[in-house]
């Protein structure tokens, strides 16, 4: 995949991040919502225009799925995949997405 390259095939159209810190008043769901909301705003798209999602979560539990994103954003019926690769979970979710699609 890498040999073929992804130039002009994949583009980042929007991104953002939440505030960092000991955010006692926020859950991981709140942070996920905030990041997605500001990234879609940055991309000037509507939430409904998202066709699929990849999420990287490293959390104590097993048995979490990509459906967590669907549940928070209510993107019912859209494909969702969760990637876990320890602290590289987020980066790996991104890499999987750009090379697979």
């Amino acid at each position, binding site marked *: 995949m890498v040999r073929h390259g992804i130039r002009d095939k994949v583009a980042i159209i929007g991104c953002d991040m939440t505030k960092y810190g000991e955010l006692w008043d926020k*859950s991981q769901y*709140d942070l996920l919502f905030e990041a997605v909301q500001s990234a879609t705003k940055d991309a000037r798209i509507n*939430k409904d225009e998202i066709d699929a999602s990849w999420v990287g979560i490293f959390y104590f539990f097993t048995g979490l799925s990509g459906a967590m994103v669907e549940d928070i954003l*209510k993107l019912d019926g859209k494909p969702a995949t969760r990637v876990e690769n320890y602290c590289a979970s987020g980066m790996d979710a991104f890499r999987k997405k750009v090379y697979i699609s």
Partner: protein
Amino acid sequence: MPIGIKSYGAYLPKYMLPRESIGKAWDFPVVPGTKAVAMEDEDSLTMSVEAGLDCLEGINPKTVDGLFFASTTQVYTEKDSASLIATVLDMREDILTADFSDSTKAGTTALTRAVDTIKANEDIKSILVVAADTRIPEPSTMWEFGFADGAAALLVADEENIPISIDDYYSVSANTTGPWKRADKDEFIRTFEVKMDAMFYTQSMTKAMSELLKRNGLKPEDINIAAYYYNNPRMHSTISKIMKFGQGVAQNSIFFQVGDTGTPMPFMLLIASLRRPKQDDKIIMAGFGDGADAILMQVKDKDGVRQIGKGRMGFVGHQKSMAILKNYNKFIEFKELLNKDRYKRKSSAVTLWRDTASVYKWYGLKCKNCGTVQYPDLMRTCSFCRADDQLEHVKLSKKGTIFTFTLDHLVGGAYLNTPVPRCVIDLEGGGRVLVNMTEIEKPEENVKIGMEVEMTFRKEHEGAEFKNYYWKCRPVRGRP
């Protein structure tokens, strides 16, 4: 304006244990009657919530200016319970909360402190006083016949047309020989010599009540209702004789069926006596424990008192919906006296704090766009119309019907009272919640889709060495 009792509420657990089964278990002489026994998911705090809910039925909790909690069975020795009870009852934050403990007279002491506080502060118009106890008797001792569980609440207020006025009180302090329970070493209550305990009880009780009558220029025959603490029926009649109360004045309706509930007992005796109030009845209520408090009250508006009784379960409503606990071993299990190794669950105090509105105060969300009520309140997107940031908090109902359920044989690894029904409840007025069911026998036969249930505040588990409370559902006991 007169200070007095604006409302009352009570709570008795679902089960009563026949004293006969205690006698059989230990080859003791058989003693008649039953006693109220709380389940393993109940403690003084959860029972206080129930009594508080009963007391505040039809009253906006945001109008109450304080909450005093009285108990000898505090759930924490550092961390107050009053603030959590006030949170669950959905009271304001700019209120006064305090715990009263270490003596079975803590209830009457909290009540008299509430009266004084209201008298001394113009801004404080009402205080809810809740008392609860779950004293665990040492198995195979005589305490086992008496000690029972329950809670009661009185709303003290300063307002016109108060149904029952609180006119005066008198207290005595006495360092007695027992009973005691060392904070650092004892699992159970101990005593040195019961006959000496009885002497101190008689002295303090009669002294407090006689002095109160004397300074108000009253004679024993002027008293219509006497609601005083007692832990055995013989002592009850001794006090009545010494005080020279008329026939039927001294309230004794509780011990035979319910038992010695400790701190809330004087409140319960009072509440039980108010079923048929007479205008201008004079009432004396007294609590005991290293001294005594006696409180003088009067029925100012009998219709008002009757009105309170109509809107809530009170003492009798709970008593009527109790069931017999058939098995003594079940009582030992309820009290967790068998030290079984139990699976420890995870917990986060931070998450609990963050989710206070949904977990404790029982709030859900209502979508401003489509009107759908949903739970929990952790979302920012409507589950139905998918609108972002259109959700506002809404108080959920504590009644509902079972939409679906499953029976969990392994829940929490406790293997206690399994299978546990895990129910999806459609609440009245909207909202669908997933909660466990308690107070259910033979769930395989008795849990049904469409069954009506009530929400009750219970101990869920003690993960992370912390008490985790949450709502459960129970078959209807008749809460209005």
